[in-house]
């Protein structure tokens, strides 16, 4: 007679199957939703071509002005034509996408970090600290932030890409902080936090290593959705002339050609592809974001 052998590995595997990780749930949700899958594939193609193609393209050739080649409509040589300096629009489109994406991601991460810290502190301590921090946040949220960003951009000395990212991040974390704070307030009442407190774990450790993992799905959902928003704000600001400095082209730089009526109508190939590319990226990111959002909330899941 043999004792029943408990297969440790099998148990763990079963456990994993019953409690799929967030990443696995997101994947299942995306695979289930054909539009989200299509969006993810399209977005991956855009990202890959934006980051890989500049490696093969001669960047100095791209910025070289060629007056014999000015305002050429799309042809086999220049897939989407050339601009006022005879530069290839397609190449600029790729570099612009790369810059816009990088800045969008950077702003999302920095703003996420600020919002997370602010929200966690406010929610974890609660009481008077929370009260004061929320009054400050309420004030910040009523500021006309677009105007403030534009004013900051004009008054900051030695303005460059990094200061731009910083300025944008300063005005991008308010909503996130409020969201995280409201969840942290609920979380602080739970037993595991109280247990940790009783054991004397330092507050910052509870906040970032115990509370934060439980809020991570919320943060991930929010970050995916704000990434699209941040790219929109960056290209919008660059379009108005208050975004990226002249040396760093963004998709907004190409669209800003459209401030001239003649170019809007007769040289549409300069600005229209960039505008449509932004639109497609926004739709893709949002579609994937919606799938991620559903995956994080069991009641909304489709798969």
């Amino acid at each position, binding site marked *: 007679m043999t004792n029943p052998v408990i297969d440790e590995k099998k148990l763990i595997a079963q456990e994993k199957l019953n409690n799929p990780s967030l990443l696995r749930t997101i994947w299942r949700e995306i695979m289930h939703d054909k539009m989200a899958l299509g969006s993810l594939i399209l977005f991956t193609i855009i990202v890959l071509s934006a980051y890989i193609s500049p490696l093969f393209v001669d960047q100095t050739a791209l910025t070289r002005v060629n007056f014999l080649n000015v305002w050429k409509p799309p042809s086999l040589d220049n897939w989407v034509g050339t601009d006022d300096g005879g530069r290839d629009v397609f190449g600029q489109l790729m570099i612009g996408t790369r810059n816009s994406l990088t800045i969008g991601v950077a702003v999302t991460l920095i703003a996420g970090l600020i919002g997370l810290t602010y929200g966690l502190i406010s929610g974890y301590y609660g009481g008077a600290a929370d009260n004061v921090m929320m009054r400050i946040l309420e004030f910040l949220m*009523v500021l*006309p932030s677009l105007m403030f960003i534009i*004013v900051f951009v004009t008054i900051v000395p030695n303005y460059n890409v990094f200061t731009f990212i910083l300025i944008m991040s300063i005005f991008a974390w308010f909503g996130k902080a409020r969201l995280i704070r409201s969840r942290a307030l609920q979380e602080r009442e739970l037993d595991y936090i109280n247990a940790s407190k009783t054991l004397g774990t330092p507050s910052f450790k509870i906040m970032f290593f115990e509370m934060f993992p439980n809020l991570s799905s919320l943060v991930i959902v929010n970050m995916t959705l704000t990434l699209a928003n941040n790219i929109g704000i960056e290209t919008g600001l660059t379009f108005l002339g208050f975004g990226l400095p002249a040396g760093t082209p963004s998709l907004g730089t190409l669209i800003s050609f459209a401030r001239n009526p003649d170019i809007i109508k007769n040289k549409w190939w300069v600005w229209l592809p960039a505008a449509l590319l932004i639109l497609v990226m926004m739709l893709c990111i949002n579609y994937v974001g919606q799938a991620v959002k559903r995956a994080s909330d069991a009641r909304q899941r489709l798969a």
Partner: protein
Amino acid sequence: MLKFILRRALLMIPQLILLSLIIFMLSKAMPGDAVTGAFMSNPNVSPEQVEKIREKLGLNDPWYEQYGRWIGKAVQGDFGQSYVHKQPVTSLLAGRIENTVLLSLFTAIVIYLLAIPLGIVAGRWTDTWADKMIVTYNYFAFATPLFIFALLMLFLFSFILGWFPIGGSGNIRIDPGSWEYIVDRAKHLFLPVMSGALIGTYGTIQYLRNDIIDQKIKDYVKTARSKGVPEGKVYTRHILRNSLLPIAAFLGYEITGLISGSIFIESIYSYPGLGQLFLQSIAQRDFTVVTALVMVSGAAVIIGTLLSDIILSIVDPRIRIE
């Protein structure tokens, strides 16, 4: 009730003071003040003369004196002189504010005219083809950046199809007050308003749809149904009363979006309003106008939020309990 309104209104005062302080600090930090902007390019004015003008204008006083002077006058509606336009900022704003208010007002009206019926249809007939279409439209409205949408509208309807003028607020040669004038203004307003409104519907549709879906299964609705109230009336008399009231209150919160939207819309349609004036003044370093504009917009948002909070507390007494 009164206590809540008073408390809420008192909260506004430190907000306004803080806002004015921040804006004042920013205006001081701007590279070059009005004097340098107006005289630096003029070789006939010596540095000593510039210094004299500064002294005369009080630009060398300590900041708190300058702030006190600025805020004291601003409260009375005097924001100083625009050094570029050579006229008082207040009259400069007064000439433009009508255009922006008109644009924002019509945008808000169209948003509600579109969003409320669509939200009701989507909420009442959930998971029908109509609901699916509305949800898809709403998803596009949420994802599309305003300036791209406005540009595409301008390109399609003004340049390709030629149905609308490509910019401005009206033909100055037409006599104001005539029927022709109104039609002309409307033609100039149509595209800017539609660009803002068509993708501004997101929040309202989303809120209304979710709220109706929530209300539908509540006990008071079941009671009404079991009493034999016709289905149409269940919606118009019972559910909508609960769902629509908060929407009326959200109008004040919309002001933030309308202000930042007007900057893009006015720039794209070269519509002579406050948003365009803001961009021009920034480019020309006309800082008295910039500070006045940011101050006015900030105050408008603060007052709008106050009104929304008060209306919301009237329609929903639960908010008052703290």
